[in-house]
C-alpha cells in the first residue's frame, strides 16, 4: 500500500495550490457585499485555467476536454475548495459545465446540444426535483405522453439551479408511471423558450443563490430530443452522481475544512484574551485537534475512493460514505472555526460564514444525508457477512 500521490499528482496539487493561493484567494477581498463575482473577473480566471490546461476537466479528450482521472479531479477540487469564491454545487472556473448525460447524445443531438455546450454557446440545466418528488425522484409527477413525432409534457419542477441562465433543461419526466425508476422515466432536452414553458425565480436560499421553478403546460417536445432510450433516464445519471459525491462533496469539503483549520490555528495564536493567547486554552486546542483528525480521516476516504474508482471498482456505497462524512465534517469544522474567530467569524469579511452556509446546503442536494444513510443500511444488511 502506498499513501503517496504519484509524482504527476503531486505536481498537479502544487500547481493548483499555488494558483489558488496567488490568484483566487486574493480575489476574495474584491467580492461585493453578497460575495458575487463579476463576469469580468470570472473571464480573467478562466483565461488562466485554460492556459494551464485545466479546462473542461470532466470532458473526455475526444471532445476537447482534459479527460482527467477522478484522482486528479479530487486533487483539483480539494484545492479549489479552499476559496470562498464559488458556490459548491457548480462553478465555471474550469470551463462550461457539461451535464455528462449529454455524452449519451446521438450524432445529430451532439451537433445541437453537446458541441454548443462545450463551446460555451448554450447552457443546459438539470430539472428533476418537483414539489412532491425530491429525495424520491422515482415518484415524479411530470408526465410525458407521446403524440405523433412529439411528446406532450405537463408538470412542475422546482429548486433548479441556473434555469434562468439556461436555454435548455435536461428534464426528467415519467413516460410510464407504473414502472417508476425501473424503466418509467425518460430524459428529454426541453427548449425553455418553447410554448407552455414558464421559468420563475424563487427566493434566494442560504447560499445567496436563487434557484428556479419551471412550469410545463402542454409543452411539445420532439421525440428526437430524448437522450438515450425511452425509460433509460434514471440510469444515465448514476455514474455522474457517484463521481460528484466524491469530488464535489468529498474533496471540496476537505479543502474548505483545511482552510478553516489553517485559519483557526493562525488566529488562535494571535488573539489574546485574559492575558493569554487562545491557543493556550484546552477548549480551543481540542477544537483544533478534533478538526485536524476529522479532516485527515475524510481526506483518506476521498482519495481511497478516487483510487478505487480509477481502477474500475464499483464505489457507489463508498461514495455515500464520502458524501455523508465530508459534508457533516465540514459543517462541524466551519462551525468551530467561526466560534474561535468570535464576532469576526460571522462577518462576511472572512470566508468562514460562506463555508458554513454552503456546507449546510450540500447536505440536502444530490442525496440528503439521511437518504444516503438509509440506502447504505439497506445495502449493508443485504450483503453476505464477511469480516
Amino acid at each position: 500500500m502506498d499513501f503517496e500521490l504519484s509524482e504527476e499528482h503531486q505536481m498537479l496539487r502544487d500547481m493548483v495550490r499555488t494558483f489558488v493561493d496567488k490568484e483566487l484567494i486574493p480575489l476574495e477581498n474584491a467580492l461585493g457585499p453578497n460575495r458575487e463575482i463579476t463576469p469580468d473577473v470570472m473571464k480573467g480566471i478562466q483565461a488562466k485555467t485554460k492556459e494551464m490546461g485545466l479546462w473542461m476537466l470532466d470532458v473526455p479528450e475526444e471532445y476537447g476536454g482534459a479527460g482527467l482521472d477522478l484522482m486528479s479531479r479530487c486533487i483539483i477540487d480539494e484545492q479549489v475548495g479552499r476559496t470562498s469564491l464559488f458556490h459548491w454545487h457548480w462553478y465555471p472556473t474550469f470551463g462550461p459545465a457539461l451535464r455528462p448525460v449529454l455524452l449519451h447524445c446521438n450524432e445529430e443531438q451532439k451537433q445541437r446540444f453537446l458541441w454548443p455546450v462545450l463551446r460555451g454557446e448554450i447552457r443546459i440545466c438539470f430539472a428533476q426535483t418537483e414539489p412532491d418528488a425530491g429525495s424520491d425522484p422515482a415518484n415524479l409527477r411530470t408526465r410525458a405522453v407521446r403524440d405523433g413525432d412529439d411528446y406532450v409534457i405537463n408538470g412542475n419542477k422546482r429548486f433548479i439551479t441556473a434555469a434562468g441562465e439556461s436555454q435548455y433543461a435536461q428534464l426528467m419526466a415519467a413516460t410510464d408511471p407504473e414502472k417508476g425508476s425501473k424503466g418509467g422515466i425518460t430524459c428529454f432536452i426541453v427548449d425553455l423558450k418553447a410554448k407552455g414553458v414558464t421559468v420563475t425565480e424563487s427566493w434566494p436560499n442560504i447560499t445567496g443563490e436563487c434557484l428556479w421553478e419551471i412550469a410545463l403546460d402542454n409543452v411539445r417536445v420532439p421525440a428526437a430530443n430524448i437522450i438515450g432510450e425511452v425509460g433509460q433516464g434514471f440510469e444515465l445519471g448514476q455514474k455522474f452522481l457517484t463521481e460528484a459525491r466524491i469530488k464535489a462533496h468529498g474533496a471540496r469539503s476537505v479543502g474548505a475544512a483545511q482552510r478553516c483549520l489553517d485559519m483557526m490555528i493562525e488566529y488562535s495564536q494571535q488573539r489574546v484574551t485574559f492575558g493569554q493567547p487562545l491557543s493556550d486554552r484546552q477548549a480551543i486546542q481540542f477544537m483544533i485537534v478534533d478538526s485536524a483528525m476529522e479532516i485527515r480521516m475524510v481526506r483518506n476516504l476521498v482519495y481511497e475512493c478516487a483510487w478505487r474508482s480509477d481502477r474500475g471498482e464499483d464505489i457507489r456505497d463508498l461514495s455515500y460514505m464520502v458524501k455523508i462524512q465530508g459534508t457533516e465534517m465540514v459543517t462541524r469544522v466551519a462551525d468551530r472555526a467561526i466560534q474561535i474567530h468570535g464576532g469576526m467569524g460571522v462577518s462576511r469579511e472572512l470566508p468562514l460564514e460562506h463555508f458554513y452556509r454552503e456546507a449546510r446546503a450540500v447536505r440536502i442536494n444530490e442525496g440528503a444525508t439521511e437518504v444516503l444513510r438509509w440506502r447504505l443500511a439497506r445495502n449493508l444488511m443485504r450483503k453476505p457477512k464477511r469480516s
Partner: protein
Amino acid sequence: MRIVVLMKPVPDPVAASERLRPDGRLDRANAPAVVNPNDEYALEAALKLVEAHGGEVTLLTMAPAAAPETIRKALAMGAHRGVLVTDTALEGSCVHSTATVLAAALAQLEFDLVLFGVDSTDGGAGTVPAAVAAKRALPYLSAAGKIEPDPAAGTVRVRRMTPTGYDLLEAPMPALVVCTQALGEPRYPSLKGIMSARSKEVRTFSLADLGLDDGSVGGAAATTRLTGTSTPPARGAARIIKDAPAEAARQVVDYLVEKWIIQ
C-alpha cells in the same frame, strides 16, 4: 536558439523549514526541495525566447541525486531536457567549486545563451554567475530586465536595470545573462507539461564525466570555511500610529526624517 537555464534546488522558502545541521551545513534531508524561485524567472524568460525565436531549453543543475524530482516541475513548465551534475564528493562545495563544476558542465553543452537567477534563497551569494562567466570567458550581462537576441547577427541586447533606469548592453553570443524579476512572472506548469515531464530526458554527469577529480572541487577543496552562525536580534515592538490620515502621515514623515531614511 539553444538556451541553458541554471536551476538550483533549494529548501522550500514557503515551508520555512530551512535548518542548519550541527556542522553548520543546510539540513537538506528534512526540507522539501523546490526550484530556486529566482531561477523560475530565468526559465520564464528562456521559454518566452524560444516561443519567439524557436529552439530548445536545457536545464543545468548541480545537486544531490534526488534533484530530478525537483526539476521535473521546471520540465512541466516547458523546458525540454535536464542535465544534472551529481557526485557525493560535491557535498560542502563553496562558490568557487560550484562555479568550476558548472563551467565544466557548460563545456559539454552547446548554447547561444545561458541564463542564471540573481541569487539563491539558501546560499544567497549572488556570485556564481559572475564566476562561471569568468571561467568560461563568456560576456557577462547582469541584472537583465529585457533580453533581445538577434540570432541572424549572432548578438544579444540586454537592458541592465539600474537604480535610475537601465543601461543597454550588447554582446556576441554565446553570452551569459543574469535574469531579474522584471522579465516577468513565471508561468504555471501546464497539465500537459505535468503529464509529459517524466518522459523528458535528464542526463546525469559525475565529476569524472566532466574531467574533474574530487580533490579539486567539493568539500575537500572549499576556499571558504563557515566559522559560526547567529540569528539576527529580535525586532523591537512596532509603533502603531492611529491618528487621522493627515496627522498620521505627518508623524510617519517625521519619523522617517528622524531616522535619516528620507530628507
